[in-house]
């Protein structure tokens, strides 16, 4: 077997592209979960973002407007979930699954006239000198702008959660909503904000798929990416920086698996395709095994229904 044709730089570049939509959706879901809400509808919000971003980009010829529309569409869909779970107190797991079904259907319906079109191309970073550096240039300075955006977003979320007062309140709501309520915080409003943010991020992740990674619109194109995003949040044990590790690891295994096949490695493709999921489980187990640490990070009120009785 000739492994020399595996170019690590090229591998790294494609794994980043494969990981970015998952990272975007995961960072949004992390904020949602930190506020104590479990929204399993990430897949639905991603695909709505994918079609909204695509449609608006095609119609306006502006990828920026498309990304904005994707965020709005994702947030809008998320607010349906928010209204049901926060105001009408419905079960979060069931509502999230219904949101996925609804989102997939609605996106397919909206997208019927957009199949077979090409979106306007999105700008790439191009810094003279830096972008032309031999290895580092390709690895660090020649991506599409959303790659940097996603990392900036992770930083922003980290800063918000750990360094800002608003973030502290959000975490308090996720830890103990009754206590936060008695301190005078509006639990429902704060959670609605987190849910909308999560939707916007998922929408952005979907738009990254339809505008940059693939780029085209087709029905069901998220193909399970939303579920991976959910897994990565737990994988990261609710720590923003670890999301990057998780998303890139997952993207890396996916890409490496395809590359090994192209090399003609003699292991069944079906078994290779299992590896990203198995590795996620293994890492999940390792991360969770330390009960003290895991329980410190997992929001204590996650998935529980809050109703202010006074």
């Amino acid at each position: 077997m000739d492994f020399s044709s595996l170019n690590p730089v090229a591998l790294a570049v494609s794994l980043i592209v494969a990981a970015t939509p998952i990272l975007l959706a995961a960072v949004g879901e992390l904020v949602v979960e930190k506020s104590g809400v479990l929204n399993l509808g990430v897949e639905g919000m991603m695909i709505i973002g994918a079609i909204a971003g695509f449609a608006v980009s095609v119609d306006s010829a502006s990828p920026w407007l498309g990304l904005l529309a994707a965020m709005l569409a994702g947030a809008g869909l998320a607010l349906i979930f928010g209204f049901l779970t926060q105001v009408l107190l419905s079960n979060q797991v069931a509502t999230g699954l219904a949101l996925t079904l609804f989102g997939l259907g609605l996106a397919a319906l909206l997208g019927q006239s957009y199949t077979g079109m090409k979106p306007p191309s999105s700008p790439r970073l191009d810094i003279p000198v830096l972008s032309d550096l031999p290895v580092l240039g390709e690895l660090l300075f020649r991506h599409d702008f959303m790659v940097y955006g996603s990392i900036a977003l992770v930083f922003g979320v980290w800063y918000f959660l750990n360094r800002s007062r608003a973030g502290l309140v959000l975490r308090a709501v996720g830890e103990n909503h009754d206590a936060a309520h008695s301190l005078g915080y509006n639990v429902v409003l704060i959670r609605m904000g987190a849910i909308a943010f999560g939707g916007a991020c998922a929408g952005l992740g979907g738009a990254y798929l339809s505008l940059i990674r693939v780029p085209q619109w087709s029905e069901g194109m998220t193909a399970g990416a939303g579920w991976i995003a959910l897994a990565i949040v737990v994988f990261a044990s609710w720590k923003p920086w670890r999301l990057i590790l998780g998303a890139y690891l997952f993207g890396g295994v996916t890409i490496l698996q395809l590359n090994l096949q192209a090399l003609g490695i003699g292991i069944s493709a079906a078994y290779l395709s299992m590896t990203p999921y198995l590795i996620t489980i293994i890492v999940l187990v390792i991360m969770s095994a330390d009960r003290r640490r895991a329980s410190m990070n997992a929001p204590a009120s996650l998935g529980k229904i809050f109703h202010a009785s006074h």
Partner: protein
Amino acid sequence: MWASRMLRLEPRAQPSSVMRWLTPLLAVGITMIMGGLLFAAMGKNPFEAIKIIFLDPFFHETFGPYSRSQLLIKAGPLILIAIGLSIGFRANVWNIGAEGQFVMGAVTGGAVGLALYPADGVWVLPLMTIAGALGGMLWGLIPAILKIKFNANEILVSLMLVYVSYNFLAAMVTGPLKSPDGYGFPESRSFTGVESTHLPMIYEPLGMHAGVLVALVAVIAAYVMMERHLLGFQIKLTGQSPRAARFAGVNPSVIIAVCLGISGALAGMAGLFEVTGPAGKLTTNFPVGYGFTAIIVAFLGRLHPIGIVLAGLLMALTYIGGELAQLSLGIPAAAISVFQGMMLFFLLAVDVFVNYRLVWKVVK
């Protein structure tokens, strides 16, 4: 704060039994109106569309008799899986991976049948069913053990195992379980083609095959267990108050294992019934998402056995009615999923009135 100024939800002293029956009707009513608007916006006759989806599967002159027989075939696996899930959900054990247990049950049970091929005898199918239940149970116990031993979140582990099972299925039907007479296509031998592995039809006009019968037995068994048996009490107690359960001497690890084991076994059986009956053989495409839909069915049925039966039938109705609407009105499949999604939203939304009442309240 805005919520406290206008309408407010107040907890009822007791869940309203009137609302328990009224809310699903209300939700279906709202769905008909909103769905009608959706279809009208698409240029289809809304009354016609709603009639086709909800009534034609029962009463249509030509489609009715056949569609009626299909309702149970479609609802059977949903109910069987949802019953198992509801037991776990009562204890706050979140098995989201029933789809994977469904697949693994079909693969292990199917493998036993294929290993015995072409054995004759009435014992073959029961043996396959046991193997299927075991396969599903073991797959369900993986997240249970990881949760008990390592505190790993069962939602995520069971979900990841769905994707593993899909790939395992692909490996099996392109490998060891591939039919030798199938020209290399990725599928097993037909189970329905051999008497001993063909799931028997018990009452054709209602589509009642042996699997549906098992589902109904499971409904009754679950009811008895949850209402009359100590284990059911312990499961419910764990869900309502883990602390109280521990004081009462309930071992949470046992509850986790029991819940995931039962739901895995039932999902595994459902998978086996699907491949030995309606689907006919193992292929990469036989899982059509019953495991995920069953989660919604469990909640729509409010985790209650009777409610789950009704919810399963309602979901089945919208699938079959939705196909008829595609067929006769040319409504795209996507519009049908939007319609189903709306129905689920409304059903979940109105549930609030069972436990809460709406009151005007001015807050100081």
